[in-house]
């Protein structure tokens, strides 16, 4: 957007700089970081959180915030897998993913309607719908995991498809999962929509100045529906993708993911005030977050402390972007 400002001054370049610096530092402390095996594993960890982050990015650009996507993702994945196990339908790969995506979109539509029609604050709306989605899922459908022994074979096959397969020094195989392609494809699509289509631009316009967007003649209701439904759809898709990558469907999955994903999106330069953010930045933000968490694990740091680190990163990123946005306004 602000191409006039030299590219190296852009938020994305700064985030990329931080990423490179962190990679060099981590590589110095632990040379195993640069091993192909570790890089592939990093890429794999990016996929699900990255797809969810794309949805949160949309909502944040529109000036909202979403904490319901982990619940939607868990619900969509569990519903589809349960149906496959209990009813033997749907089968294959495509239809299940389509259904999970649609289920997520339908739940996103509930968010959109509440935010748009009742003009409610997105944080409160999504807190409520998240609690309801989790509650209904556990109360009506069930609370037991679908484990690998019952898990649909078609999804297991899909989840372990690799683009490249290699063998490490100890003789174990590792690979770059094909699901990375799904992530990259979706990122490209969202990038195109955000930067080149009127609906995408309307999200920026609405997020930056809702009143001005209305005066110019944007149908802002449509923008909101687009944003929340797409975010829901991405969550549903990511939910089943995650499930197929770990060969298990857990109705209580994704608890606490909102912290990681929102932190990643903010790290990537999206503004909590709306109107700002990019797919590239978000992908970089996701990579930083995943990489740091991964390194903390390699360093043997306890998971409880990881949350402290992620929380601190979130606050630091929000403070930095808020500073940037305020500077830009003056």
């Amino acid at each position, binding site marked *: 957007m602000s191409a006039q400002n030299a590219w190296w001054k852009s938020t994305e370049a700064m985030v990329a700089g931080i990423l490179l610096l962190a990679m060099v530092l981590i590589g110095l402390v632990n040379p195993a970081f640069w091993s192909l095996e570790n890089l592939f594993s990093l890429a794999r960890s990016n996929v699900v959180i990255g797809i969810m982050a794309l949805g949160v990015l949309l909502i944040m650009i529109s000036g909202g915030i979403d904490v319901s996507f982990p619940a939607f993702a868990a619900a969509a994945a569990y519903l589809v897998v349960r149906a496959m196990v209990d009813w033997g339908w749907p089968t294959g790969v495509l239809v299940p993913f389509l259904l999970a995506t649609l289920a997520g979109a339908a739940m996103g539509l509930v968010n959109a309607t509440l935010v748009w029609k009742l003009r409610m604050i997105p944080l409160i709306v999504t807190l409520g719908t998240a609690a309801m989605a989790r509650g209904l899922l556990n109360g009506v459908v069930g609370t037991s995991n679908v484990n690998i022994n019952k898990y649909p074979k078609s999804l297991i096959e899909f989840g372990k498809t690799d683009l490249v397969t290699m063998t490490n020094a100890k003789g174990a195989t590792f690979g770059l999962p094909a699901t990375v392609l799904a992530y990259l494809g979706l990122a490209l699509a969202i990038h195109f929509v955000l930067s080149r*289509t009127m609906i995408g631009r309307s999200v*920026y316009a609405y997020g930056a100045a809702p009143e001005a967007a209305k005066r110019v003649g944007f149908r802002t209701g449509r923008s909101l529906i687009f944003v929340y439904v797409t975010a829901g759809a991405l969550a549903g898709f990511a939910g089943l993708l995650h499930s197929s990558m770990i060969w298990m469907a857990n109705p209580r999955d994704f608890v606490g993911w909102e912290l990681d994903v929102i932190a990643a999106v903010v790290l990537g330069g999206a503004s909590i005030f709306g109107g700002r953010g990019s797919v590239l930045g978000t992908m970089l933000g996701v990579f930083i977050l995943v990489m740091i968490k991964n390194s903390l694990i390699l360093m043997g740091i306890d998971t409880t402390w990881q949350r402290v680190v992620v929380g601190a990163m979130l606050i630091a990123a929000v403070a930095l972007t808020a500073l940037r946005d305020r500077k*830009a306004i003056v």
Partner: protein
Amino acid sequence: MTTNTPLIEMRGITKRFGGVTALDDVSLQIMPGEIHCLAGENGSGKSTIIKVMSGVYQPDAGTILIDGKPAGVLDPVKSTAAGIQVIYQDFSLFPALSVVENLTINSFLHEGARLVDRKRARAMAREVLARLDVDLPLDAAVETLPTSGRQLVAIARAVLADARLIIMDEPTTALTGREVERLFRITRDLQAHGIAILFVSHKMREMLDLSERLTVFRNGRKVAEGPIVNFDEAAITHAMTGRALEVGHYDAPAAEGAPRLEFRDVSVPGHLSNVSLKLWPGEVVGVSGLIGSGRTELALAAFGMLPPATGAVLVDGQDVTPRSVQQAIDAGIAYVPEDRLSEGLFLTRSIRDNSIVSSIRRFAPGLGLNRKAAADATREMFDGMAIAAPSPEVAVGTLSGGNQQRVMIGRWLMTGAKVLILNGPTVGVDVGSKATIHAIIHRMAREEGLAVLMISDDVPELVANCNRVVTMVHGRITAELSGDTLTEDALNDSLRLNIEVPA
């Protein structure tokens, strides 16, 4: 240039909000390609008629004709389709988006485009900026532009959207002199392209210099209309306020006893150096100078926001040199800042809540608020300040600028202040309200022995309302004018001198 069919004709427009009649049987005609000025005080119905024209409000009665044909009920889409574009005071731009995108986004939108054609957008932006003969960085985010630049973007956007009538709502409020000149040039350019302009303003010079026809509103009615040559400043003022304005000097009572407020060799590194100034009870002393001359810093030093490094501030001969705002208030010093909206008022709260907030201890000696005392004191202030509102219970945000300023001043008087420092007391306040505010200040000074320090860059205002005016440059007082030497010419000369020969 003008044909005989008005571009837009509004007949007998009435608009009510609850019990308030904002527009009462108003008519307004704008011919194609004319520069028409709409004048009126705040609250006269100017903004309401703009919103009727742009289709934001639907009138309760009356008809609108566009090109001589009844247009029915206007909505924003119909209004823009008829070529009516409004430049609001906030410009309605998208701060994080580029100039190109801000210019072209609504054209694309009205074409029903689904994709953004970046090449064409650039070409369109280049063309319209060339047409207006202005230079703007195409790829810069709009938020990085100064106010004047943002206004140009808003105007260019209106032109791109095939405007036939551009309505500018108080467009010069935030512009410097040169920027106003440029805006006038562009406005005349637009006219040369056959675009009509409705200039909404309450500044005399703009009306007289720029417009061809003038319509004046007062209290929701049209009170005057005609070619600008039929008007002069006095006639416009009379039409706007319904009364002739008296311009005279303020004569302070003779100085006696100790000065009410005294600055004694006050220095703040980087802001003020060795400033000494005495104000006796009943005096209204003006401070003039450019921004950065130390005029605002002088106020801040007295109000405890910029504590002096050396020197002292005295009230009634007592050294009170404040180190904090609370100390200044306790010493009887009150300060009304320039930006009352962001620095002074709680817009969503009532007049009463806003009034008692600075003297809250007086009404809440213990834990509870003495509601009766607070209400009585507010009522007294409300009447004394002649605030035009149904009751002290209404939210301050619903008042006009002049009435908000009265609430601000009234609040301080309720603290029992002895010294009142006003920074830009009538910025954004219309002519009639200005007069009322000045009258109140004079009465308070004369009857209650208040010493008033009035900071302003409005030369006529200072000359008419102060008994003395000092000018400041680089943190020093450089001249003092009073009595017969206090004239607009002398003050202008003194200011000009200051610019050319920095002390």
